[in-house]
């Protein structure tokens, strides 16, 4: 069912305890980069815990955790800031690593007046053009051909930027997966595809998404390499990402990376996995927890101590508390902002509808979370 060790085509550097496997090549990653990744992985875990509790208290409408999958977020770490990232909805670590702030994150979840997307989308649908992180869409897979378009645009414009796009294994069933990878293969687009295979698309197991042995094997049909990596092994993730990014930047074309991981908890705050899967399954994966493995590795390297991690946890908890307090006293976006950004300039019919609404009595939101 989840026999990671038995898969001989799986790239691993660390064992489940975070020790370097015999014969494994350790990627050349600077100490401060490793510490920064651990720092942001810790932030993701603190944030997920706090936000899910708020959701359970009825203070936040919706949330999506990524516990157990955090290492996959840092395939973005070897990218340059001029490279583009098309996230799915479960890569919080990529956002924080590139510089998205706790306050921006929280403001988006609450859709308040400081939300970078002006309260236009439900929680976890971030957008940050100053970080080349593209607006998240709910229909899965739509971002795949878009990322290929950005990648090819860079090539056409004579730049050596790379695009990286995330999606889950369930998304490999969509037309857009096929379309996107096919276009990328034909165009030799500098694009890195990260298939985050966490075993479950809400309640549907990976066996019901494909009859193929692996998701990485699908790359063959598109004329590109497919690499399967232990997605809970940060060193292996960084290694395969760096290789794929280097290939793309050198003009050698796209790569499909299947990052094997596991969705330890529900799909979202609206999900209850106990209804559809064996509760023992997550337990197996908790032993392969990416944060624990990275902590063990850093400890072996003399890069971790308890006080540092506790300091991170305390600081992030405080920053989240501060961001929540600020959000509590931040009003929603002004009503008239609902009509902005449909077009560059507001056409007459929207101006007319806006004037009409502004002349009505204000309606109180039935979803008051704070």
């Amino acid at each position, binding site marked *: 069912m989840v026999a990671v060790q038995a898969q001989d085509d799986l790239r691993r550097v660390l064992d489940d305890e975070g020790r370097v496997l015999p014969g494994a090549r350790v990627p050349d990653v600077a100490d401060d980069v490793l510490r920064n990744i651990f720092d942001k992985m810790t932030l993701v875990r603190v944030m997920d815990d706090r936000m899910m509790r708020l959701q359970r208290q009825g203070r936040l409408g919706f949330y999506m955790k990524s516990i157990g999958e955090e290492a996959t977020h840092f395939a973005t770490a070897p990218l340059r800031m001029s490279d*583009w990232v*098309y996230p799915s909805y479960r890569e919080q670590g990529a956002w924080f690593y590139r510089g998205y702030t706790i306050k921006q994150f929280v403001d988006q979840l609450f859709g308040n007046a400081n*939300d*970078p*997307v*002006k309260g*236009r*989308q439900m929680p976890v*649908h971030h*957008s*940050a*053009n100053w970080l080349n992180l*593209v*607006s998240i*869409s709910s*229909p899965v897979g*739509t971002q*795949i*051909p*878009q*990322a*290929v*378009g*950005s*990648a*090819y*645009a*860079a*090539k*056409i*414009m004579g730049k050596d*930027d790379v*695009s990286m796009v995330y999606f889950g294994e369930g998304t490999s069933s969509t*037309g*857009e997966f096929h*379309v*996107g990878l*096919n*276009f990328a293969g*034909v165009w030799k687009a500098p694009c890195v595809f990260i298939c985050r295979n966490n075993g479950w698309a809400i309640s549907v197991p990976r066996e019901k998404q494909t009859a193929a042995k692996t998701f990485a094997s699908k790359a063959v049909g598109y004329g590109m390499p497919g690499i399967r990596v232990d997605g809970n092994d940060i060193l292996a993730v960084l290694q395969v990402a760096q290789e794929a990014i280097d290939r793309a930047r050198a003009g050698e074309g796209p790569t499909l990376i299947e990052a094997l991981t596991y969705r330890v908890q529900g799909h979202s705050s609206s999900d209850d996995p106990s209804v559809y899967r064996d509760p023992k399954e997550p337990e197996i994966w908790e032993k392969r927890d990416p944060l624990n493995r990275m902590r063990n590795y850093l400890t072996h390297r003399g890069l971790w101590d308890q006080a540092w991690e506790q300091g991170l946890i305390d600081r992030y908890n405080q920053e989240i508390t501060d961001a929540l307090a600020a959000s509590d006293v931040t009003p929603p976006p002004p009503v008239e902002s609902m009509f*902005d*950004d*449909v*077009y*560059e300039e507001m*056409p*007459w*019919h929207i101006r007319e509808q806006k004037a009409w609404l502004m002349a009505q009595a204000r309606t109180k939101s039935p979803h008051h979370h704070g």
Partner: protein
Amino acid sequence: MPVMNIIQAVNDALRLQMRQDPRTVVLGEDVGKFGGVFRATSGLYEEFGGERVIDTPLAEAGIIGTAIGMALYGLRPVPEIQFGDFIFPAFDQIVNELAKFRYRSGGQYPCPVIIRTPVGGGIRGGHYHSQSPEALFIHTPGLKVIAPSNPYDAKGLLLACMRQNDPVLFMEPKRIYRASKGEVPEGDYTLELGKLAVTRPGTQVTLIAWSGMVSIAEETAAKAEAAGISVEVLDLRSLMPFDIDGILASVRKTGRCVILHEAPKTCGFGAELIASIQERAMEHLEAPITRVCGFDTPFPYTLEHEYMPNADRVLGAIRQTLEW
């Protein structure tokens, strides 16, 4: 001034823009060496090369999806969907993605993609080469919908579209791609989006049409004139946004209005026009506004000539309006 047909005018606009702006690229099925199945991109591949005139794999969702990514990154893509009927595999990319990118990102990500596609019947193309799907896209906030009826408008409107920053569905009337000919200025000019053209002034009835139906409207007006009826023909040109002031000015003058479109009647754009006119000009109306449209059936093959609105039917509607 050179005389061009619509294909030549579109081709001219694309070439002009591509010469001026190296960010402009064309992509689609058969648009490269072949120059498009209707020849609209003819000669562009030779002049601008395969990286700016891109023969894509055969997948509409891929054409629009990649065009979106290109636009976000900084290009100005002008994808071609070979027939309007083939646009639906890209419907999600257009409706949920392209049209919403600016809004859903809080204004961070404008997405200037100009989709060109031939529409309309009258070419013996059956259901899959004849549809007029404008209403579906007019109903999509964030998208502009432009539908020229002649070469002069096609060039000026397409150039205008390629120089603004919103996504556009640019619908070209394929039945008269070559049949519609007219004088087109050689150099650069743009026409303002959102403005109709009064193609024939009149006093008794306002007849509103767009795209391939403008020629039917003109034919109707000529027949009406021979019968002593003065018809004012409005070519909407821009469906979203549409020129409400221009429409109201005409309807307030004539007091009567007939709307002509090829697309199915129910929830067709004519319905919106009627609602918008009566909300603002009820006191000027001498008769109910009527429509001559396609039927609420799929577009037929053998009986196409019975499906398509024609001048006699439109004239009948005009007479009814006058006699009401």
